[in-house]
């Protein structure tokens, strides 16, 4: 354990920029939800009608929590936001523990550290101490945020403790997974899978009789019922899980070599498959994993949105204020809802496409492009291969998001036509997504160093306009800067071709200019 204190301080220094963001985001989510819930459900009658709606609505329960929380306004806030804040803290814990253990070992930095007067358990201990501090800070700040926005002290303290405990459980699980896999991807894969299982079990449990929820750390946290029953004992479960998995991690750590895992990496192929023969084959190989993850995520999100579609009418009837958040108001609630969710899908697809285009820049800054560029591969192919994946991939992602919404909505209203309708309408946003990708390509070609900042700013601005454009009453020119805002708000508004053609032309022009710029400039190698 020698060196733990030094390593802990060093880890905190390495995290000084990123860590506060996680903590503040978690607390901000609680504060915003607290304000909104107290705004919407100040009248007990409204809370009662939400309870009735929720009991008959599995989709709503699957996305939120147990109905029991809907006894008080504070409980309603927990009902809506707990799973999400807990997820933020779980991911934060995962990232922290991985970064200060397996990632350091993988990069070879751990070797240097361990050659000093540093005990074998010190890096893991330091990582867990930092994770515990971070979760405690986030829980405390969340409790402060809840109290500051007017919720009772007791429940807020319990809410903060519950969030911190769930986060800590994932820190422990990550610590154990770090001992098992010899590379970070394996660790994050299994921890994210555990988090997904925790969502699924809790969702299934709360839709059913609640038994399955007891298998989920998120379920444990919710079952403290802050502001309703204020019971502390369920927190023994996540804290116990953290303790047991940490103990397991230490036992495994004492039995493995530095850099090794319990499971050795499987050897890969000695020969490349036929697909890995061209620049496009390489781009596909590098990007297929991320495309699969985005596609699956957006399809599932689509299913979730779609299953809400019908019940949104009931929810709005109960709480007319919600209609203020929908572009069409209460006029056509279902279409208004889908207008928002499809636009949301388009913003996420833009984020995917931007990441895919910037991959080309990553290949350059990492120096990996050098060996490829020295083969008879043109600059067009070097950048074009990644652009091809980005454009086709964003099409797939958008279509799957629409398909998910269509399938779930079709099932809810027993109308198979909804499948094609929502999938097709979703694709109306493609030209706007391509404009975002085209701007990223333009930046990679003409302003490579600024490319990530430029490209992500466009995505972020599209998000701001899509989510807050109406509530902030942004001026027209500001909205015009978002490509997606030029697309008719289908299905609420009528689909017109002219703006889509315009967007497609802009996307093409930007992409071609980016390719020409890329052809004409030096590659930036270290």
């Amino acid at each position, binding site marked *: 354990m020698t060196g733990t204190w030094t390593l802990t301080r060093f880890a905190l220094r390495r995290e000084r920029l990123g860590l506060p963001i996680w903590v503040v985001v978690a607390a901000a989510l609680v504060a915003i939800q607290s304000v909104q819930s107290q705004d919407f459900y100040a009248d007990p009658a409204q809370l009662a009608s939400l309870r009735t709606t929720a009991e008959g609505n599995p989709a709503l329960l699957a996305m939120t929590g147990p109905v029991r929380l809907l006894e008080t306004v504070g409980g309603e806030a927990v009902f809506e936001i707990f799973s999400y804040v807990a997820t933020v803290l779980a991911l934060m814990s995962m990232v922290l523990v991985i970064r200060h253990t397996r990632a350091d070992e993988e990069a070879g930095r751990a070797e240097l550290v361990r050659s000093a007067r540093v005990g074998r358990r010190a890096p893991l201990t330091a990582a867990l101490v930092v994770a515990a501090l971070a979760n405690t800070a986030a829980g405390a700040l969340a409790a402060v945020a809840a109290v500051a926005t007017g919720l009772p002290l007791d429940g807020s303290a319990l809410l903060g403790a519950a969030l911190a405990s769930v986060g800590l459980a994932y820190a422990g699980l990550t610590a154990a997974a770090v001992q098992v896999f010899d590379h970070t991807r394996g660790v994050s894969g299994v921890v994210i899978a555990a988090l997904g299982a925790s969502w699924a079990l809790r969702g299934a449990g709360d839709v059913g009789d609640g038994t399955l929820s007891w298998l989920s750390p998120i379920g444990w946290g919710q079952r403290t019922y802050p502001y309703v029953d204020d019971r502390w004992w369920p927190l023994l479960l996540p804290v116990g899980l953290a303790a047991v998995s940490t103990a397991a991690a230490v036992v495994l750590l004492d039995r493995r070599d530095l850099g090794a895992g319990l499971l050795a990496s499987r050897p*890969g192929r*000695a020969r490349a498959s036929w697909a890995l023969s061209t620049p496009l084959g390489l781009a596909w190989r590098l990007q297929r994993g991320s495309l699969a993850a985005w596609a699956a995520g957006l399809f599932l999100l689509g299913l979730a949105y779609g299953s809400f579609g019908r019940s949104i009418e009931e929810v709005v009837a109960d709480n007319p204020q919600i209609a203020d958040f929908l572009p069409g108001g209460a006029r056509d609630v279902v279409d208004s809802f889908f207008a928002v969710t499809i636009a949301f899908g388009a913003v996420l697809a833009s984020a995917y496409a931007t990441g895919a285009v910037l991959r080309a820049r990553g290949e350059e800054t990492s120096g990996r492009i050098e*060996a490829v560029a020295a083969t008879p591969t043109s600059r067009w192919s070097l950048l074009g291969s990644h652009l091809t994946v980005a454009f086709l991939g964003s099409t797939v992602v958008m279509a799957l998001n629409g398909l998910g919404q269509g399938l779930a909505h079709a099932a809810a209203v027993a109308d198979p036509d909804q499948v094609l309708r929502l999938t097709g309408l979703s694709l109306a946003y493609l030209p706007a997504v391509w404009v975002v990708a085209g701007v990223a390509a333009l930046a990679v070609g003409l302003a490579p160093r600024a490319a990530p900042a430029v490209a992500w700013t466009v995505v972020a601005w599209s998000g701001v306009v899509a989510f807050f454009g109406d509530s902030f009453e942004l001026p027209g020119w500001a909205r015009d800067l978002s490509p997606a805002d030029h697309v008719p708000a289908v299905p609420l508004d009528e689909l017109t071709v002219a703006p889509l053609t315009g967007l497609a032309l802009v996307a093409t022009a930007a992409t071609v200019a980016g390719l020409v710029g890329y052809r004409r400039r*030096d590659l930036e190698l270290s």
Partner: protein
Amino acid sequence: MTAPIEVHDLVKTFGRTRALDRLDLTVADGEVHGFLGPNGSGKSTTIRVLLGLLRADSGTARLFGGDPWRDAVRLHRDLAYVPGDVTLWPSITGGEVIDLLARLRGGLDERRRADLLDRFDLDPRKKARTYSKGNRQKVGLVAALASDAELLILDEPTSGLDPLMESVFQDCIREVRAEGRTVLLSSHILAEVEALCDRVTIIRDGRAVESGTLSELRHLRRTSMAVETDRPATGLDTLTGVHDLVVAGPRAEFDVDTAHLDAVVRHVSGFGLRSLTSQPPTLEELFLRHYGTDVARPAVPA
């Protein structure tokens, strides 16, 4: 026949830094050409201009007589390149990288691939993230050597290789030369260059300061001598071309400009030579003279 590589007055600047300052470099067909210089002297920049990755500001660079910037794709068919720092995709295996690069270049010699993997003792099934620096370098070397490219451009290819692998590498380069192929070998490992290269260009601050065969270069330089004579050798200090003379009784140690070697040996033999050891200048000395302190630089004989 045009030389595979011809560079004249090449200038490349990055902002205010003048990375290449009127560089000249000629690599003749079928030779192994050593490209020597310390880090930051412009070796990699020169190579990247030759590969069309960077565009020259002025001067000419010709690869097989063509323009490396405009005709990059066509010219790359006939060359294979190993970067100084081979960076690979973490989740792709070494074997896959070798195949990918070979296929992008238009195919590879299967027998040679298997043979090289064996000689370099490289496991092609390991994911690149698990390779050490030396193993990543081997992946680049096998990919390049398994091709039948006419020109190999190797940028410090052996950094990270152990002595055993260094010797395998040297064997491979000799085979390549025996096949009549051309190699541009950038290096700062002098023993490697001395062992392999027909001609050498020494570069400093983006400018070629020496170029020629090793013997030509040696000719311009001093030979260290230690003699023992029957009678004390006198008058050595009056001879042209003798430097750093130390006389102790019958022994004398000094450096001779190689151009004056003959006259000096004749003079010394007049005193009854008992023993003579002479050491030709090593590449290392040539190198240090260019990069060492200016005090150590000799006056270049006219």
